[in-house]
Every structure is written in structure tokens, then in C-alpha cells.
């Protein structure tokens, strides 16, 4: 061995010794005896229970001065009621939070309780037995009201966190926010004298949608000089109505297509919604529009921000998205163009039906580290925030701080229990309160939630003032047009609901979902005409050959196993 080699060996040895020394640094045993507590669903602990958490934060939580994620009205309320001290192991935003979770998993030191955003990470935690089974603590500690909330989803919500019959996480709820709304410039409709939706059910046929887009394109009522008829983001489709901003999900409704969802076709076989003949028909319609110039000639390169700019510049008069886009997107349009008014429509098929799919009922999860002394604390916090605080008869007297947080709009991520748990019907229930109060059928005191109360005040201000604030206008438009549309569709039974049969991940999906998803980019080519419509059939054949067929079989198998 050369001298040089010997030196390298020495250096290597030194590194090893250093590493051994480091790993010797004590790792204290975190598994302690459970802390005893009072009986009941919100029993306070006899000694202070420390709960170290991973917290997903938001850029603009709007804390009053001095408050932080670790020490705010909500964490103090938890201390007060449950004698639990919340300590934050880590805090981070969005993607950075996921990275911190990965680092925590890698270093083998999960916090006692934490929020998990994606199903994939939850799968990993469960597979590696890193999280506590919560089946029993949920049964024993969840209050009746909380159980009612979860039951309103008919098991669909808890199922998303259930593995082999055991509940491994507390899932957040996600109610159906269908349909994808088409917000159309009402002032432009009036200006051009266009007559659409004569039965006033706010459902447009494909022909009517086309007519509006064509008129806006030809007459340029915004006076921009460079109008665009319809504009969509390049990824075209979304698997949830909440994420349907600038997508074609309203158009697919007319063709009974359900892109990105696993459904049963007419023969009862499991099929992927993006490869059905209905999807081909939808793309055919879009390609026709593109050919006629009704669909944005720059489709494919126009990004989300570009489309927002089109709307703000009066070039585009139709915006697709979830019902709440006036609150955070169209408010910019109103700010620049005080004359702008929006009416909410959706698109129906030839029989006047609006074809929509149920959303994935779970949205985010709270998990407890395997071996934590008091796993029931997570359910106690659930009770505290979604039963006690919500149904508190006199929150303002007993917990003025918490009440102030709600009225000042401090972000919900300030709560240590970081998912939302709302009843399946809460969207329309809250709207019924708002509408009832505005019509003076019920008093302000009877309005159930603090948020609804502030919306009633906003809308009253909007009606009273000659030059209303943009924010009040936004609340008015999103509720009295947006949710009003959902309510009327529900009341008139115009919704035709489809239930996606499978939400999980199969073996082949893990391997090939990225490449299969990539293949869907062919849609842009089909719409712009660079690939003929029949290219769709080649895409379907390819898709099936490269794993799609296998996934369908796996899902059939999984579903058969459930029964």
C-alpha cells in the first residue's frame, strides 16, 4: 500500500470515529407513561401534557401582535381547557412543510402529532408503522356531534384514512363543491343585448356558451381591442371542483365526461374518465372552438396568471372555477373595472342535467406518532375546535380571545388541529342562514357561525352603499350568485351525481402514474389541431398498454376484495 493510500485510510478512520462519537450523543426515550385525565370527551389532564407538533403554516396568518403559531389564542385555549401545552417541533409553509416532514421521518424523530397533507405520505407512515392506530380513541373520545359530522359523509370520509379496518389518522372533510361555475360578465351580456338562459335556471347549453363567447369575441364589449372568447389552462382538467379554476370541468359536464376520476362505465366496468369516448367528444368540441377562433388562439402557452390578466384587462368575459373565485380572483377584475358584474352559470347536457362527481371526502390528515403516551389528545382537540368552539353558547364571554380570532379572520392554520371538519351539508346550511337573515326571516343571533354573520354584514353594506368596497362585492357575488347557483341546482334536482369508485393508489399506479399523466398532455395537441381528433384513440391504446389496463384490473380486484 502506498503512503498516500495509508493516509487516506487514516483520514477515513478519523471520520468513522467522529461519526461514532456523534451518534453516541444521547437520544432520550420519548415514550413516557400516559398522563391521567378527567373523564369525558374533553377531560382536562391532571398534569400538563406536552404535545410536540409539526405545524403547516401560512404566509399571512394575521396574528395579533406578539402571537405566534406556538403561542396564540387557540393554543392558550387548549392549555386552558385540556391542560395541554403545544410545542412546535417545526413550522413551515406548503411544500417546505412536506420537506420538513420527510426530514423528520428520515431522522426517525416524528413529532407527537402532526398534519399530513398527502395520502402518499400517510401511506408511507402507515406501512412503516410510524403512526398510532386511532380506531379506539376515536370511538371512545369523539363527541356525538363530531361523529354526526363524519357520518354525514356516510363513511366516505373516514374511509380515506382507514387501513385494513383500522383508523390510522383523523381525516379532514371535503364537502362536494360541484359544479365548476362559469362566471360571465353580466354587464357585457346587457351591453350586447344577448339573450341566453331564457328559463333562468342558470344552466347554459354548450350552444349558449358558444354563443356568449362568440358575441364577446365579435363585439368586444370590454373595448380592449384584443378580445378572447374562452381561455383554459394547459392542464385542462382537475380531479376536484375545488381545483377547477380555469379548467374545462364545466364543459366536460355537458358531455358526461369525468376526467382524472375512476368511474364505472355503462357496462359496469371500472374505467379512467380521461380515456372515455365522452372525453373524446369534449376534446372534439374544444378543437372545433379552437379552429373557429372562439377558444384562445394562444391556448397551450397561456398560464394561470396570463388568464387572470386577460380577465382584468377586459379581454375575457368568462371565468371558470369553484364558486368562491370572486373572493380572491375576480376581486382584482372588479378593482380595475368598477363596472364589472358577474353572473354565475354552469353548463348542462342536452337533457338539462348537470353531470358532476362526488369529491374525495378526505382532505388532509392529523396523525399521532407511534408510541406517544396520550394519543387521545388529538381527538380531544378535534372535539374542542369543531364541537365546543362551534357550538359554544357564549364564546365571547368565556373565551373572548378565541372569538376575536374568528371575527378578525386569523387564519385557521393557527389551530393546532390543522384540518377542517365540517358537515357534508354545511355549505348550503350556512347559505340558508345567510339568505334567511338577509330576508329577515331569522335574526342575526340565530345565524349559526361567526363567518356567516360577517358575510351577512358585508352583503348588507354592499346593498346600502353607493360605492361599495370590492371585498363586500366579492362576498355578495360568491354567495348570492355562486352558492345560490348550487342551491338552485340542488333544489331543482338538476345534478346528476357520479360516484368515483376508487381514490387510492395501486401498485402499478405508484410506478407509472407519472408517465401516464404525462401522456395526457396529448390533449393540448388535439385541441390545437396539431394532432387529429382520432389521435385520441391511439392515446387510449397507448395508455392502456403502458399500465392503464393493469391499473384497471388492480382496481377491479381491490373493489371485489372490499365486498
Amino acid at each position, binding site marked *: 500500500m502506498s503512503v*498516500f493510500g495509508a493516509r487516506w485510510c487514516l483520514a477515513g478512520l478519523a471520520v468513522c470515529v467522529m461519526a461514532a462519537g456523534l451518534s453516541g450523543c444521547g437520544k432520550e426515550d420519548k415514550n413516557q407513561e400516559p398522563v391521567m385525565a378527567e373523564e369525558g370527551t374533553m377531560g382536562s389532564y391532571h398534569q400538563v401534557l406536552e404535545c410536540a407538533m409539526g405545524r403547516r403554516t401560512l404566509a*399571512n396568518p394575521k396574528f395579533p401582535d406578539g402571537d405566534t403559531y406556538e403561542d396564540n389564542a387557540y393554543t392558550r385555549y387548549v392549555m386552558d381547557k385540556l391542560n395541554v401545552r403545544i410545542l412546535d417541533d417545526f413550522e413551515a409553509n406548503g411544500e417546505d412543510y412536506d420537506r420538513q416532514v420527510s*426530514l423528520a421521518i428520515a431522522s426517525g424523530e416524528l413529532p407527537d402529532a402532526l398534519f399530513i397533507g398527502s395520502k402518499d405520505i400517510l401511506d408511507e407512515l402507515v406501512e412503516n408503522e410510524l403512526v398510532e392506530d386511532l380506531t379506539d380513541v376515536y370511538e371512545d373520545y369523539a363527541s356525538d356531534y363530531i361523529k354526526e359530522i363524519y357520518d354525514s359523509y356516510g363513511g366516505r370520509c373516514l374511509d380515506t384514512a382507514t387501513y385494513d379496518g383500522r383508523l390510522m389518522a383523523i381525516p379532514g372533510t371535503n364537502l362536494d363543491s360541484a359544479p365548476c361555475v362559469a362566471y360571465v360578465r353580466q354587464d357585457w351580456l346587457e351591453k350586447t343585448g344577448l339573450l341566453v338562459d331564457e328559463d333562468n335556471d342558470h344552466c347554459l347549453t354548450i350552444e349558449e356558451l358558444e354563443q356568449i363567447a362568440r358575441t364577446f369575441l365579435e363585439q368586444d364589449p370590454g373595448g380592449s381591442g384584443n378580445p378572447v372568447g374562452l381561455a383554459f389552462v394547459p392542464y385542462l382538467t382537475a380531479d376536484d371542483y375545488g381545483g377547477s379554476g380555469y379548467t374545462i370541468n364545466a364543459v366536460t359536464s355537458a358531455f358526461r365526461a369525468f376526467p382524472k376520476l375512476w368511474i364505472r362505465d355503462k357496462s359496469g366496468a371500472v374505467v379512467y374518465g380521461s380515456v372515455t369516448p365522452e372525453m373524446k367528444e369534449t376534446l372534439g368540441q374544444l378543437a372545433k372552438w379552437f379552429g373557429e377562433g372562439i377558444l384562445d388562439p394562444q391556448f397551450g402557452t397561456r398560464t394561470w396568471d396570463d388568464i387572470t390578466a386577460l380577465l382584468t384587462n377586459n379581454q375575457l368575459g368568462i371565468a371558470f372555477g369553484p364558486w368562491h373565485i370572486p373572493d380572491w380572483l375576480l376581486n382584482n377584475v372588479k378593482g380595475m373595472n368598477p363596472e364589472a358584474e358577474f353572473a354565475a352559470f354552469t353548463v348542462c347536457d342536452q337533457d338539462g342535467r348537470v353531470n358532476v362527481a362526488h369529491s374525495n371526502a378526505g382532505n388532509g390528515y392529523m396523525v399521532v406518532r407511534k408510541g406517544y403516551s396520550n394519543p387521545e389528545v388529538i381527538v380531544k382537540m378535534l372535539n374542542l375546535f369543531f364541537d365546543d368552539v362551534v357550538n359554544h353558547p357564549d364564546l365571547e364571554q368565556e373565551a373572548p380571545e378565541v372569538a376575536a380570532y374568528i371575527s378578525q379572520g386569523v387564519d385557521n392554520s393557527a389551530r393546532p388541529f390543522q384540518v377542517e371538519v365540517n358537515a357534508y351539508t354545511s355549505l348550503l346550511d350556512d347559505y340558508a342562514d345567510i339568505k334567511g337573515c338577509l330576508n329577515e326571516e331569522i335574526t342575526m343571533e340565530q345565524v349559526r357561525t361567526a363567518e356567516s354573520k360577517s358575510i351577512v354584514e358585508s352583503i348588507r353594506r354592499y346593498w346600502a352603499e353607493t360605492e361599495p368596497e370590492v371585498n363586500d362585492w366579492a362576498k355578495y357575488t360568491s354567495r348570492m350568485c355562486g352558492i345560490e347557483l348550487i342551491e338552485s341546482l340542488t333544489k331543482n334536482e338538476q345534478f346528476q351525481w357520479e360516484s368515483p369508485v376508487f381514490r387510492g393508489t395501486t401498485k402499478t399506479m405508484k410506478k407509472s402514474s407519472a408517465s401516464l399523466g404525462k401522456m395526457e398532455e396529448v390533449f393540448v395537441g388535439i385541441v390545437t389541431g396539431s394532432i387529429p381528433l382520432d389521435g385520441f384513440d391511439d392515446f387510449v391504446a397507448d395508455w392502456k398498454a403502458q399500465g392503464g389496463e393493469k391499473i384497471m384490473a388492480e382496481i377491479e380486484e381491490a373493489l371485489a376484495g372490499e365486498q
Partner: protein
Amino acid sequence: MMIRKKGIMANLGTGVIYGIVILLGLICLLPMLNILAISFSGSDAAAANIVGFVPVKFTTAAYEKIMEDRQFWRSFGISVFRVGAGLVINLVLIVLMAYPLSKTKREFKGRSVYMGLLIFAMLFSGGMIPTYLVVKNLHLLNTVWALVLPGAVPIFSVIMVMNFFMGVPKSLEEAAVIDGATPLQVLTRVYIPCSKPVIATIALFSIVGNWNDFFGGLIYMTKVRNYPLQTYIQTLSVKLEDMLNSGGSLSSLINAMEVSSQNLNAAKIVVSVVPLLMIYPLLQRYLITGIVVGSVKE
């Protein structure tokens, strides 16, 4: 005539070169002017993408909002401290390491081992997670030292300074030694004064690198209140589109919208760039000579 013609050609050549340089300069300058204009525009005008180089609907609202943001100033302070501490540590360690390495193998036995280690460490790093574990086990998480110490010896700079030291005439050192100077005195009285350009250069690298780095903060700081400025700014620029698609609730969308307006983002960029813009001209005159001369060997 010929001479005159040649003169025209030469002028033409110079003109073309100037043209290209001006064009390149504009490419660098115009986006900054655009950001400056956006930062002084109304948020709706910024969202409409209609701001060029002149603010539309002039307002200083974005700057007022930054002034109110306590975390911004806290992070600003952390960044300033980090840059100061990082600069001192970097300069001391680089110079102390580069000086012995600039000696020949005969004067400094084992030089090649150290060089080998340095080059090896420069080419191969431990990777994110092992580095994180080391920092974590040293209990450095959430301290400013987690940002400074892992990058305490930038090897590229060591090599640059080493090369520069090698270029300093030997006779200077010999003269000092004859006058009775100790090795430390030789370094501080002879080498360092002779090497101002390269030291200014690595100082600039250190300042810019420490000021602009945001990733270290994301990994090693587990609380927002410990974030350095660039990390904090990075977390503030939320893409509403991504948030919507990942199932963000309505209230969080509204709260995020309030800070994600493009004019506010632009204002944050402007404020965070100003300190560097002020330091750069002070050191810039050394910069070019520092890099070029460093590559000349005696």
C-alpha cells in the same frame, strides 16, 4: 485614405461592440426597472400585467405594508447578522487555510493530503439529509450558526486565494524573514496587504452567497421567526394556483391572496436587493483583478 478607412472600420467595430454591451446591459437592467415600477403600482394593475417601466396607479401601499411587517425586519436583522458573522469566519478560515497550502510540498509536508481532502469535499458533498442530521445532532437547528458553519470554508475561494498567494514574489517573504518576522507576521504584514484584490473578491462572494441563500434557512430553521430574509421572502410568494389545486380552504386562499399580490412581491424584492446594490460598487473595482490575477502562477 487607407488610414482613414481603417479608422472608420475600427470605429464601426467599437460601435458594434458598444452596441452589444449596451444591449446586454439593458437586458440586465430592464427587468429590475420593471420590478421597481410594479412595486409602486396598484395591486390590480400589477395583476393585470399592464405595468411596463412606469408605475400604473402610483401607490406606496406595498412599501407601507412591508414597514408594518415585523417578521420582515426580524428576518432582515438575522440576514445582516448572518452576513457579518459569515464574512468574518469565512475570511479568517480561508486565509489561514490558503497560506500554508500556498507553500511547496517541501516546505509543508502533507500538503497533498490536505489538498486531496479539499478537492474531494469540493466535488462530492454529503447530501441534504446526512448534512441535516449532522447539524441537528450538533444542536445547531434554529440558530444562525446552522447557516454559517456548514459553509465556513468555501473551498473554491480557498483555492483562489491560494493561487493568488503563490503569485506573490518569494523575495518579499524572504526579506521579511531576514528582518525577523514570524510566519504569522509574514502573513498579516506581507501577504494580506499584497492580496487586497482577491480578498475583496472572496469577501464579495461570501456576502452575496450568504445574503442570497434561502435554502439553508428552509432546512435548518424549523420556525418562521428564525428565517433569514431570503427564506422569508420565498415563503411569501405563494402561487394561488398551486394552493387551490392542493385543496387550500377559502379562508387561507383569501389570506394568501392578500400577500401574494405582485406589487407586494416586487416591493419585497426591491427592499431585499438594496443592501447588495449598496455594497457592490464598493468592492467591484477589485473584483475583476482579483479573479484574473489569481490564476497567474509564478
